[in-house]
């Protein structure tokens, strides 16, 4: 019995009391192991006696042999959500105040700083403009291609309704969808897997301070844009709004750098912004611009950035972000007005336009608020169900469908099945509604309805999701019958759930809105039929809106920004309170069961994501237990050979190295005097800044901050830098380049304190020192992110190679 518990807690730190008790009879396990890779690592100091880490301690003697063999080879487990991937690194948000930096600052005139400020505004304006243009391009492309598709299929269906052979239309529809989706999926699966999905989880991580590889590259943007066009035209249950946020972020990261590494073009602009601090601020502006273009919600965009990346915020930055958002929605609006041949008539601020809720019946009454709250609860429940199903599908996909060709096949199958289900639904629907000029259906399908009528199911399925949402919001009461809506909700729920997470770039906003709008409208209709006078106030369109908000809130669990986005997208502040209440209820109810969809996906990608607060009940953990130790340190004046060896060591892919004053003895930890990053060392090695060389060639140009910026953000790997045998014997002086004042904490600092430092300052490395300022350990993001509240209290995630 005891054995079982211990085996479980081998992979997670679930049972800390058991661990502590087992610790009493602790054998020395991995002392020898740690000795092995110490070139200049301090082995445990005098007071530090080396015993296995807490989790290994639990194993009793009888399994020790087994355990040793496990340590020899790498242990492998199936992918699950309780892992942290090694491929993610932190962003260097913290400024490195080395001597080069100080020199540059001294050289810079006050005018120069003013120019910088102005160019920040210019960059934000450009971000907004380009994001708006991209949104415009996506919108026009989708509209035309989807229009073409529906036109062709509609004509085909009309022909075959008369002569028979509708199954051919079905095959045509399915085949067309599958073909288009295949295109988009190939782009994503083979060229840029990171462009899959909505991109919001990735941007959330980036704003959180995690560098997701390749997430803000130009290639990603191109794949994203074409991928999203393909997946919407391919008729999947997806929207183009989420990807817009990612696109905005990529635009921001690109524009602010004034160059493109992919295209190998350097415009020699904005060189000052080539570091993580500035880039991340601009990325938050880009994400805001993306939201703003997607929903026509500039304030919502700003609040989205605030909600997702708010630990580093200031008033000027917010104001700039707002500027970018406004420019973005204006640009989209302006260019769409040109496209619609109404130049200057700025009436389409976002990709999704909810239309205006203006008629008398859309006012709400006090007694409706409990109804809204109840709908919020339903939304929370349905959202939790959605997330739960999607969680399992995603786990299955990660484990079994990881080859690109399989992913493409899966996407094609989903597209074909979506078409088949839609067609069957439309075919067997008996809901016929008269064509009226006021509900202008774009592609009305008649099928077996009488002449002059159209199939109501087709308005929901045979349309782009955006249009379906709008018709659910605004069509006359009575243009859908309850059965149609019920069936539609059911099928679309499962389709959307199945679709999200495919290797196509596509968002979940619109499908959620659509599901919610359908059942919300259903609620409205049922209310009107239940109570006699409800038909006056129970406007189905209003309930569709509330349902949409509830469903979306239940799935993504965003709060403030989502409320504002919904209010802005409807253009009606009157609904502020109901929407807020609905989103609150949905979040409370949903959180009781499972996390939000984006958080689930972040977890499943094993990203070291830091939440707002350290997990509760973690105050007893101190920096000493959290930190990695022993630390690979470098001397202030270090031999080149040592540095090259340290950097090329594949087993320890460290990024930050504390710089210590040369210690007398080898086993004594050195006194901390600075911190240097891998990227800096690589630039130094590349430029061969060796003490001997500098001495011999006095004319050599001094290394400047610019050289570091030029190499940013893709520093070459250590393998590509050639260091000759002679050079290995040279020395390197790190004094000028290291960060002389890194943040440090004493060993007894509690986890929440360390956590707060990380979250508030955007740290990447935090050195743990003893009372004599000697380095004893290093805390990184992964050390903190591995603690989280599980079902059984505090749990520990494991590091894994992915």
């Amino acid at each position, binding site marked *: 019995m005891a054995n079982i518990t211990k085996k479980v807690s081998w992979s997670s730190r679930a049972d*800390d009391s058991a661990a*502590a008790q087992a610790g009493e009879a*602790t054998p020395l396990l991995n002392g020898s192991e740690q000795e092995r890779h110490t070139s200049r690592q301090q082995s*445990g100091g005098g007071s*530090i*006696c*080396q*015993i*296995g*880490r807490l989790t290994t301690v639990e194993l009793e003697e009888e399994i020790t042999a087994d355990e040793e063999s496990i*340590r020899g080879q790498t242990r*492998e*487990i*199936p*992918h699950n959500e309780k*892992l942290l991937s090694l491929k993610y690194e932190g962003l260097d948000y913290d400024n490195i105040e080395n001597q080069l930096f100080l020199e540059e600052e001294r050289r810079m005139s006050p005018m120069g700083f003013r120019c910088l400020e102005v160019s920040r505004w210019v960059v934000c304006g450009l971000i907004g403009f380009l994001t708006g243009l991209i949104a415009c391009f996506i919108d026009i492309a989708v509209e035309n291609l989807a229009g073409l598709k529906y036109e062709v299929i509609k004509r085909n269906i009309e022909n075959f*309704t008369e002569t*028979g052979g*509708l*199954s051919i239309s*079905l095959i045509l529809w399915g085949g067309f969808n599958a073909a288009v989706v295949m295109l988009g999926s190939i782009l994503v699966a083979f060229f840029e897997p990171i462009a899959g999905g909505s991109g919001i989880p990735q941007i959330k991580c980036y704003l959180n301070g995690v560098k997701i590889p390749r997430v803000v590259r130009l290639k990603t943007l191109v794949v994203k844009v074409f991928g999203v066009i393909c997946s919407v035209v391919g008729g999947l249950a997806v929207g183009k709004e989420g990807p817009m946020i990612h696109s905005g972020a990529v635009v921001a990261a690109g524009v602010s750098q004034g160059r493109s590494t992919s295209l190998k073009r350097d415009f020699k602009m904005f060189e000052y912004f080539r570091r993580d601090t500035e880039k991340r601020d601009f990325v938050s502006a880009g994400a805001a611009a993306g939201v703003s273009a997607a929903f026509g919600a500039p304030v919502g965009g700003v609040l989205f950035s605030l909600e997702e990346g708010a630990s580093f915020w200031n008033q000027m930055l917010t104001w700039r972000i707002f500027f970018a958002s406004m420019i973005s929605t204006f640009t989209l609006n302006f260019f769409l007005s040109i496209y619609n041949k109404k130049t200057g008539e700025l009436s389409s601020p976002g990709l999704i336009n909810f239309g205006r809720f203006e008629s008398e019946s859309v006012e709400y009454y006090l007694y409706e608020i409990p109804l809204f709250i109840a709908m919020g609860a339903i939304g929370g429940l349905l959202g939790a169900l959605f997330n739960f199903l999607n969680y399992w599908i995603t786990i299955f996909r*990660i*484990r*079994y*469908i*990881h*080859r690109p060709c*399989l992913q493409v*096949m*899966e996407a094609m*199958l*989903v597209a074909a*099945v979506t*078409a*088949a*289900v839609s*067609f*069957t639904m439309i*075919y067997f629907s008996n809901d016929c509604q008269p064509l009226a000029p006021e509900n202008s259906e774009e592609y009305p399908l008649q*099928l*077996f*309805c*009488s*002449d*002059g*009528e159209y199939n109501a199911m087709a308005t929901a399925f045979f349309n782009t999701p955006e249009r379906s949402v709008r018709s659910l919001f605004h069509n006359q009461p009575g243009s859908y019958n309850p059965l149609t809506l019920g069936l539609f909700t059911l099928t679309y729920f499962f389709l959307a759930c199945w679709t999200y997470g495919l290797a196509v770039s596509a968002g979940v906003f619109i499908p959620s809105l659509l599901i919610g709008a359908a059942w919300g409208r259903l609620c409205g209709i049922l209310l009107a039929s239940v109570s006699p006078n409800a038909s006056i106030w129970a406007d189905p369109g209003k309930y569709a809106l509330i349902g949409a908000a509830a469903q979306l809130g239940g799935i993504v669990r965003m709060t403030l920004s989502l409320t504002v986005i919904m209010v802005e997208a409807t253009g009606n502040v009157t609904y502020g309170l109901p929407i807020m209440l609905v989103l609150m209820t949905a979040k409370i109810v949903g959180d009781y069961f499972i996390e939000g969809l984006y958080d689930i996906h972040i977890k499943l990608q094993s990203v070291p994501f830091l939440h707002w607060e350290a997990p509760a009940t973690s105050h*007893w953990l*101190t920096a*000493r*237990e959290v930190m*990695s*130790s*022993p630390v690979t340190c470098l001397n202030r004046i270090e031999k080149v050979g040592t540095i090259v060896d340290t950097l090329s060591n594949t087993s320890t892919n460290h990024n930050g190295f504390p710089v210590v004053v040369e210690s007398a003895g080898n086993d004594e930890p050195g006194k901390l005097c600075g911190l240097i990053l891998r990227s800096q060392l690589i630039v130094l090695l590349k430029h061969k800044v060796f003490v001997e060389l500098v001495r011999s060639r006095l004319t050599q140009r001094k290394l400047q901050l610019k050289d570091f910026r030029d190499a940013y953000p893709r520093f070459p790997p250590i393998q590509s830098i050639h260091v000759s045998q002679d050079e290995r014997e040279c020395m390197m002086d790190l004094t000028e380049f290291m960060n002389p004042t890194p943040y440090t904490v004493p060993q007894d600092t509690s986890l929440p304190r360390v956590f707060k430092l990380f979250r508030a300052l955007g740290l990447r490395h935090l050195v743990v020192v003893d009372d004599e300022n000697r380095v004893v*350990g290093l805390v990184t993001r*992964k*050390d903190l992110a591995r603690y989280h509240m599980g079902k059984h209290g505090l749990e520990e995630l*494991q*590091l*894994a*190679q992915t």
Partner: protein
Amino acid sequence: MSFNQNTLLVVLSCICISVCVSGEVVSAGSPVFKTHVDPLYSLNLLTALNDYSDISQYCKDLLDLFGNQYVAYVNCLVPAARPVKVCQNCFVNFENLNKTYTNISSDEVGPAGEVCRDSLLRSDRLMLVFLLFSNLDGIWEKSNCKNCISSDSPSLTNDTLYFLAMLNQTYNCFDQYQQGNHTELCKNCKNTYRDLNILYSEMEKNYTMCIDIEDAMNVTRRRWSKTFNCSFPREENVPIIAVSSFMLFLPIIFYLSSFLHSEQKKRKLIQPKRVPQYSSLMNIQDKLS
């Protein structure tokens, strides 16, 4: 057509009667009302009103003309309500009324040296003449009659006439086969009906449609689909179900095969370097105990 004429007559007479009756009611009502007020005062008031008129004879004539034409137009409209024939039957009346109103509202100076527009349209809060006309004009606008009437000489457009001819043809066909089996009708009238439908959708695209045509088409379509039941039958259930269940079946195979054949992705665990010490263990125990 003869049927329509008859109904028109009946309706007209009905209107006449109702107007007369209401007139009687009014005339009968006013003396009753008068008895409640001081007779002398009211008499004075009436005579004063009768004596003084602030409009010229010219304008009064215009007003009378307007009134007559108004009545004529309304009389024409009401019987044309169902089936809707407001455009084809009454466009002449509307043209007349419109002309008169244009006269009234023009700023031409009449023979008596006054502008009727000011005296008739703008002298009081009610602006009855304007109100009356704008009501009818609204009806005219809403019914889109403009699209069916050629503007130069008030007459129906060629398109409309052609459509009406086609409609007539279709109705004749319906009448011909109405007795007996409707499948016969569906088969034989299909071509004329389809031509009519095509013509209609063309007109719909060109915006050359008025309410008359829309309504006629709606009625025809309803007869075709509901009365005669000539819509397309749902006959292909089996192939549709077969094809879609085949498509639904594909993913199941796909997932099963990838579950069985694709090797599960494993993650290599990495042992982090940690130094938990005596002291911390002691700490935990202290804190837990």
